[in-house]
């Protein structure tokens, strides 16, 4: 009897595990397949370097260079804003708060990561975009900068939790030794905690860049969605928002449709490149 | 003398690193056999091999035969073998469920469903391990609430609950204090009337106190095996003498 149950259960588990892995591999190949169709008609180079995305006009043009640039641009702005604040806040939590307060503050910060991106988009639209227009008198509040600011808020909790964890461990490990030498807290932070935590700082950058570049809703609602060359205060369009807005309208099987898949593939390749670059950077920093 | 386990030229290696070399050992029924030797000499691997644990390690390479009641253990269904040869680990491993459920965990698996006979079994085995009087009020309490010594006795009682013929103990007292160690040693002495016990220990005086036979293993080789009295008083091998005298290990 037990033998039988064991057989059935192990068979079930193996089957399900196999199915999951098969499904994932299938998804990856599916995306590859759908996008590679596109590159038979449009060269990869002209796709990523050309400047005009005009899929539905009489003589269509399929190039997403400005869109790729916007995607990277928005994410970089987000990282540039969020990183100093995030690291500072992580230092604050791990070094300046006592144990009890820490247990209260950490879940509080994690609330940020639980808010859905569409809600961020909503608040960003009403607060950031509207203030840009009303208080700062920009012609259009919907801009790359607005997207960057909004994204920076969204990635803050990830930077903070990744950095805080390792900083807290480092502090606990060396605090007494360091104090015994009579050095002050800020000295320990600059000479010990920041250098030792750089691996997790880099890890958090990878994580956040990937999240920022793949983010759809929040960015889409504040960035204006026009595929032009991005400037800080101009509108722009990112790859995810391009897919979200145009996929539903594109005829399945058309070049436009495959072009959107190809854009998705480019996004995934970008993420892969970032991961690889930062992987080697991290290995170089290893000591 | 009846032998229950015969080990014939057993060699075990992990990733081509030899751990046991050509071991021949006959374990005598209803006696306590102690296996001594410095740490890392392969004692624990020997126990795990008897219980078929090593065979499941993908890096292990095993040669030679082990006979249990004159039958090669490879021919005995794994589950049956493990029921008949119990194993208790170095650190207590109580399951994170109640004491009672710990005790009936195995028996229920082997088809004992009747509440009454389960209760009798639990009481009997807990009495053997000397734990019954300490926990009888509170059988439904979590086993994790017991002290370390109690937990280890529970683990031995749990190993007994499936009516094994042989019990393997891997340094069962190394994490316990003197009083608990004495309790367990007393219990093992009593058990040897009905069970064959093989105990790995690096505590020489413990081996001397409780075992009938002792095997000395060094660097994966069986150096000497014989009656405990003889091995400790008149060892035949120089290295055994050195080990007993505390020169290494």
């Amino acid at each position, binding site marked *: 009897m037990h*033998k039988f*149950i*064991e057989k059935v*259960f192990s068979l079930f*588990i193996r*089957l*399900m*595990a196999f199915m*999951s*892995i098969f*499904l994932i591999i299938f*998804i*990856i190949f599916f*995306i590859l397949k*759908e996008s590679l169709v596109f590159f038979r008609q449009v060269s990869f180079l002209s796709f990523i370097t050309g400047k005009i995305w005009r899929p539905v006009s009489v003589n269509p043009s399929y190039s997403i260079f400005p869109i790729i640039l916007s995607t990277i641009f928005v994410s970089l702005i987000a990282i540039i804003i969020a990183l*100093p604040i995030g*690291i500072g*806040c992580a*230092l*604050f*939590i791990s*070094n*300046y708060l006592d144990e009890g307060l820490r247990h209260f503050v950490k879940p509080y*910060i994690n*609330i*940020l990561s*639980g808010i*859905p*991106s*569409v*809600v961020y*988009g*909503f608040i960003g639209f*009403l607060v950031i975009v509207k203030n840009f227009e009303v208080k700062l008198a920009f012609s259009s509040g919907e801009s790359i900068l607005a997207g960057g600011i909004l994204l920076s808020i969204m990635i803050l909790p990830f930077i903070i939790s990744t950095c805080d964890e390792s900083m807290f461990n480092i502090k606990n490990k060396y605090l007494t030794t360091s104090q015994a030498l009579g050095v002050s807290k800020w000295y320990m932070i600059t000479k010990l905690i920041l250098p030792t935590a750089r691996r997790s700082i880099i890890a958090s950058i990878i994580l956040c860049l*990937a999240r920022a*570049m*793949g*983010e*759809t809703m929040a960015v889409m609602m504040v960035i204006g969605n026009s595929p032009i060359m991005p400037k800080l205060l101009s509108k722009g369009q990112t790859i995810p928002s391009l897919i*979200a807005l145009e*996929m*539903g309208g594109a005829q399945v099987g058309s070049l436009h449709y495959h072009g*959107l898949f190809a854009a*998705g593939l480019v*996004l*995934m390749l970008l993420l892969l490149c970032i991961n690889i670059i930062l992987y080697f950077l991290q290995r170089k920093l290893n000591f | 003398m009846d032998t229950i386990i015969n080990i014939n030229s057993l060699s075990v290696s992990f990733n081509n690193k030899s751990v046991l070399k050509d071991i021949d050992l006959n374990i005598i029924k209803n006696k306590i056999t102690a296996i001594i030797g410095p740490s890392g000499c392969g004692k624990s691997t020997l126990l795990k091999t008897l219980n078929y644990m090593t065979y499941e390690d993908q890096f292990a390479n095993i040669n030679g035969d082990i006979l249990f009641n004159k039958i090669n253990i490879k021919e005995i269904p794994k*589950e049956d*073998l*493990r029921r008949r040869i*119990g*194993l*208790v*680990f170095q650190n207590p*491993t109580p*399951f*994170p469920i109640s004491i009672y459920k710990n005790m009936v*965990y*195995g028996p229920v*698996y*082997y088809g004992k469903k009747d509440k009454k006979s389960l209760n009798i079994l639990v009481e009997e085995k807990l009495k053997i391990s000397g734990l019954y009087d300490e926990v009888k009020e509170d059988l439904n309490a979590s086993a994790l609430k017991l002290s370390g010594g109690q937990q280890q006795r529970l683990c031995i009682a749990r190993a007994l609950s499936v009516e094994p013929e042989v019990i393997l103990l891997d340094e069962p007292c190394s994490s316990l204090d003197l009083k608990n160690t004495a309790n367990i040693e007393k219990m093992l002495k009593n058990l040897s009337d009905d069970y064959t016990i093989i105990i790995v220990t690096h505590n020489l005086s413990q081996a001397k106190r409780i075992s009938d036979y002792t095997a000395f293993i060094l660097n994966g080789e069986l150096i000497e095996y014989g009656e405990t009295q003889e091995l400790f008083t008149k060892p035949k091998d120089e290295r055994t003498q050195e080990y007993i005298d505390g020169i290494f290990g």
Partner: protein
Amino acid sequence: MRRYAQGYFIKLWCVLSGIIVLSLISYIIIYIIINGISVLNLSFIFDSPKGMPLGSEGGIYPAIIGSLYLTLIACFFASILAISTAIYLLFYCNSIKISNLIHLVIGCIAGIPSIIIGMFGYTLLVYQLRLGRSLIAGGITLGIMIFPVIEVKVERIISEIDSYIISSSYALGVSKTYTFFRLVLPACKRDIIASIALAGSYAMGATAPIILTSAVMFAPTPKSLTSPVMALPYHLYLLISESISIQNAYATTFVLISILLTINIIASLVAKTGR
């Protein structure tokens, strides 16, 4: 003197960042609560959307129910596959190569942006399998999105059990199945349920995967798996992007956040009492 200045600067930086982050969170929370509560009433929760354009009056009842259904289907689909994969890796997989491969594959799917998973769901489920924009297509797409989240968590929860405890179970001659159901599952079922609930709340808030696969502007509460549904996040998106009603958007946000918060609180309670 320079030393003191530097120390002062670092302290200023840390404290200032902390204050910025904490006040930002408080601002967002207060913003949602104050704006939400002032426009929320019972009929908003229990009514269907009405008015012209649709959604400018009435409530969001079908969207609440639609979101709950989507989340349930996603959790069901994802947790069966994810828990099975975790069990396979920890109990049945004997080869390090295979286990590394599976971890790599799971890492890949975790790194794919949700919109691309939505695009896959759109083409395969909605179009090629002819499910149309439907509950089931959206549920499965969300399920694919949360699969790696659940898998990673469940694998960590189970592997936190002392391996010697599992070995002692095997040492009694007991099968893997019995060990799993009698020992492993009772010890960690609460944590597993909590992790599924958290992944569910992640799915409920996600818009990108359902924008193409299941959500529509208006639908009654779904009658079958193949009917299109309304969903809270998508409804919220429409209210703003089509400039339908800012007031109702505030109320919808408040409802969505309240549901997510409730799930989170229940999940952490479930996980805590298990300890």
